C-alpha cells in the first residue's frame, strides 16, 4: 500500500495562508467564548507539535509530556508570584529555560531506552515533578495552585495591558492574536526542523535504527536533541496556556495531562505534520462540550479513543489524506 503523495510546497503554503486568513477573522465573527476556546486549542496545538517530534518523527512515545507543559506553566506562575514579572515575553523565555533544563535532564535518563521503557521512564519522571509540586505547597501553593490573573499581564514589552474589571473581552481578543502569532512561529520552526537534515535523520532512526547507526549516526545524541526541542515546544505551550486559565495547579503535571497530549496526536494522526495540531483543537472542543453535556464525559472520550484506534488508526487528518488520495486516483482512472 502506498502512502498518499505529499502535496507540493506551493499548495501547502497556499493552504496554510488560507487557514491563517480564516484564523485572523475569528475574533471578529465569533464571540469572546469561542475565541477563548480556540486560543486554548492553539496553545494545546503547540504542545502537540512538540510531542509529535518525538512520537511521529522519532518513534518515541512519551507518557510524561505533562512535565514540560507544567514546567512552562509553573515558570510563569512562579515568576509572577516571586519575581513580580508581568511581561509575557519574559514569561515565555522563563518557560523555555525551565522546560529546556528539565528536558535536558530527563532526556539523559530516557533517550537511551525505547518503546515501553522510554514511555515508563517519562511517565515516572513526570510523576516525580507532580509530587514535588504537590508536596512543596509553601512554594507552589499545593493543590490550590498559583494564580496568574490576566489583569497583571502585559504583552509586547508592556505596551498592551488589561487593567480594570471589564477588560476580559479585550484580553481574550488581544491574547488570541498573541497566541496565534506564537503558534505560527512554532509551526514554521517545527516545519523547518522536520524537513532539515536533523529531522530527516530522526525519521531515519525511527524507520531503521540499525541502518542509521551504520551511517555513523550516534543515535542517542539525536534522540536527546529531539527530546530537548520537544520539551521546549511543550513548555512554551504551558507558558501560553496559564494566563488564559488564570491558575496553575499540580493537575497540569499529573499523568492525565500527558494522556491528553497523546490523545491529540492519535486523534489527528501522528504520521503527518498537521495531524496533532488538528487533533489538539478538536480534542479541546470535544472535552469542553462533552463536559457540558454529560457528567460521564471521560467515558465519551474513551469511546472516541477506542473508535479512533479501531477504525481510523491514521487519525482524522491521516484518514482524510488517504480518502482524498483514493478519490483522486479514482478520478484519474475514470475515462
Amino acid at each position, binding site marked *: 500500500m*502506498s*502512502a498518499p503523495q505529499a502535496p507540493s510546497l506551493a499548495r501547502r503554503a497556499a493552504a496554510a495562508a488560507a487557514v491563517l486568513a480564516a484564523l485572523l477573522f475569528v475574533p471578529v465573527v465569533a464571540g469572546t467564548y469561542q475565541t477563548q476556546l480556540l486560543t486554548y486549542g492553539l496553545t494545546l496545538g503547540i504542545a502537540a507539535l512538540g510531542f509529535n517530534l518525538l512520537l511521529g518523527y522519532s518513534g518515541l512515545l512519551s507518557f510524561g509530556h505533562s512535565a514540560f507543559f507544567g514546567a512552562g506553566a509553573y515558570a510563569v506562575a512562579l515568576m509572577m508570584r516571586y519575581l513580580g514579572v508581568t511581561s509575557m515575553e519574559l514569561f515565555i523565555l522563563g518557560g523555555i529555560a525551565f522546560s529546556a533544563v528539565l528536558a535536558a535532564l530527563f532526556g539523559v535518563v530516557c533517550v537511551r531506552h525505547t518503546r515501553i521503557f522510554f514511555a515508563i521512564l517519562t511517565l515516572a519522571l513526570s510523576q516525580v515533578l507532580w509530587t514535588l509540586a504537590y508536596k512543596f505547597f509553601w512554594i507552589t501553593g499545593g493543590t490550590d495552585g498559583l494564580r496568574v490573573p490576566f489583569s497583571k499581564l502585559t504583552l509586547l514589552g508592556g505596551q498592551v495591558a488589561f487593567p480594570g474589571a471589564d477588560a476580559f473581552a479585550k484580553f481574550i481578543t488581544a491574547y488570541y492574536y498573541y497566541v496565534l502569532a506564537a503558534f505560527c512561529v512554532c509551526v514554521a*520552526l517545527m516545519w*523547518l*526542523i522536520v*524537513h*532539515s*537534515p*536533523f*529531522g*530527516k*535523520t530522526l*525519521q*531515519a532512526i*525511527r*524507520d*531503521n535504527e*540499525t*541502518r*542509521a*547507526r*551504520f*551511517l*555513523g*549516526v*550516534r543515535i542517542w545524541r*539525536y534522540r536527546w*536533541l529531539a527530546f530537548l*526541542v520537544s520539551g521546549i515546544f511543550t513548555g512554551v505551550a504551558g507558558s501560553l496556556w496559564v494566563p488564559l486559565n488564570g491558575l496553575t495547579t499540580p493537575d497540569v503535571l499529573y499523568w492525565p495531562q500527558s494522556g491528553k497530549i497523546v490523545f491529540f496526536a492519535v486523534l489527528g494522526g501522528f504520521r503527518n505534520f498537521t495531524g496533532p495540531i488538528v487533533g489538539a483543537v478538536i480534542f479541546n472542543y470535544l472535552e469542553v462540550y462533552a463536559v457540558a453535556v454529560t457528567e460521564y464525559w471521560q467515558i465519551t472520550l474513551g469511546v472516541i479513543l477506542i473508535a479512533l484506534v479501531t477504525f481510523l488508526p491514521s487519525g482524522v487528518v491521516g484518514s482524510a489524506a488517504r480518502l482524498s488520495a483514493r478519490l483522486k486516483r479514482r478520478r484519474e482512472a475514470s475515462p
Partner: protein
Amino acid sequence: MSLLRTERLKKHFGETRAVDGVDFSVNEGEFLSLVGTNGAGKTTLVNLISAFLSPDSGRIFIADRDITYAPVDERIRAGIARSFQLVNLFDDLSVLDNVALAIFAREGKTKRIFALAERDTVVTQEATELLGQFGLAGKAQGLAGGLAQGERKLLDVAVAYALRPKLLFLDEPTSGVSTRDKAQIMDTVSSVVRGGGITAVVIEHDMDVVFKYSDRVVVMHEGRFLADGPPEEIRRNRDVATYLLGTDVSD
C-alpha cells in the same frame, strides 16, 4: 598493499566457533568474494569488522590503525561501510532521501536543524547523480518501501557507497532476486565500485557470480579459512569442491 587485516580474530557463540582465530587481509583496490556454506562464519566475520559484533579476542587493523574496539561511527570515519543481507533501508523516506542522508552523515551535516534538507543543492545533486549510477534516478522521488526487491538491493548498496568508504562490505547483494536481476545488480555494483576505486568484499553464495566478478576468493568453513586465491585456483581446489560445491574436482 593491505588495506584491512585481522589477527587471530575469534568469535564463539557457546559451542559454535563462528570465527575461529582468523587472519584475514584485504588488499587495496581488489574485489574480493567471501564464500562458504551457511554457518561458515562469513557474516560473523563482516559483523566483527564493521562493529556489529565485538570479538572474543584478536585484533582488527585498517591501514595499520587498530580499530578492534572502535565504535561504529569511528570505523565509518576510518573508511568502512557495509550493506546488509536483509535489505536495510529507510522505507518511509524517499529513495533520494535514503542516499542524501548517507551524504549528510558523511559530511557531518546531520545536526543541521534550521536548514531545509532539499535546499542543500550540493548534497541533492550528488545523491541524484549517484542514483543515476545505480540506475535508480527514475525512482528518486518514490518511497524506498515501494521499490522492487532488486531495486532495494541496489539502493542498499548505493546508501553504503554514498559514504565514500575505502572498504565496502556487501552482504549477499543478490540474494532473493531473479537470475536476470542478479546479473544486472552485479554488473552495476561491480562497475560503480571499480569505477570509484573502492575496495569491496562481497559475501555471495552464487559461485557463477563469484567466479565472474572477483579478483580473489576466500572460502570459509566452520569459522576458518579453507582456501584463498584467484577464482581459477579456487575452482580447481579439491577441498572447496568437496565442502562447498559438493562435487569432486575430477568431475
